[in-house]
């Protein structure tokens, strides 16, 4: 029972982070803010990709994940396909792993 109370608290604060800005920016927003927000998705996506590829443990490390992401980037650029990017990147990771890199 006590666990459920904590889960509910966690759910509540998580929902706050998801809903707050969607609610706050529900009306017409300042054009400058609007222009800024257009650049948030590429910035966030790049911020999710680069450290995961180049610093999976928190420190710079040019390892299997970096090469997998490089191959993934080329595939993404040529195909724009999420599926092929994932498959190509994972295949690179597994192949290099098998070769003992």
């Amino acid at each position, binding site marked *: 029972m*006590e666990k459920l*109370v904590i*889960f*509910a*608290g*966690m*759910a509540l*604060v*998580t*929902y706050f*982070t*998801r*809903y*707050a*800005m*969607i*609610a*706050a*920016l*529900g*009306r*017409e*927003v300042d054009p400058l803010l609007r*222009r*800024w*927000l*257009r*650049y*948030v*998705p*590429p*910035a*966030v*996506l*790049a*911020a*999710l990709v*680069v*450290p*995961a*590829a*180049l*610093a999976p443990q928190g*420190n710079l490390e040019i390892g*299997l*994940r970096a090469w*997998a*992401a490089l191959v*993934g980037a080329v595939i*993404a*650029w040529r195909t*724009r*396909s*999420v599926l092929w*990017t*994932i*498959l190509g*990147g*994972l295949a690179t990771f*597994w192949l290099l792993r098998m070769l003992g890199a």
Partner: protein
Amino acid sequence: MKDLWRGLLATLPLAPGVVAFGLLYGVMARQVGFSPWEAWAMSLLVHAGSAQFTAIGMWATDGAIPIILTTLVVNLRHLLLGASVAPYLRGLSPLWRALLALWMSDESYALAIAEYERGQGSHLYFLGANAGIYLAWPAGGLAGALLGTAIPDPSQYGLDLVFPLGFLGLLTAFLKDRVGVAVAVAAGGLALVGTSLLPGKWAIIVAGLMGSGVGLLLEEVKPTWKNS
């Protein structure tokens, strides 16, 4: 309704990664004394992978308030995601907006916002993407909690790469001109430096805010970089 399916199907390439880490979460939840149903309930209610792993790690040593506050901090990046998707949801009823926020994950947000950027997005596509991830995450958690011990770390098989690779595929939607490319390079670099300096998910927030600011700045300073 077609968009709902499109959104749902778009999550399929990411689903194996979500399920794999869901399994790991389920196993770890059992190890700190959760029943399978409790592990499942947390995933159903909270639906936030990083925050749940963090909470499990704190479970034995910390109390309710630190766990809930840490959950808040780990999920603060969603303020940024919500802000950037908000303009696309403006025409919707408050109920729809509240519903779309409920199951918004990094993954479903990325799928939806890329589709909006391509001019093919809709609230139904967003809902479908949310639903796909929301089906996969608790299912993995429950399965992991029921199976227990014998599940290896998905990172050993590189499955942690599923998410950044998927985001790479979606990032291409935003690299239409030099400003977009510069934003991605700046944010990626900032996040890389930030990861070694800042705790938790702060690097993503800082890089997200500053990287997008670079875009706004370049629009002013280098107007020819826009749409070139």
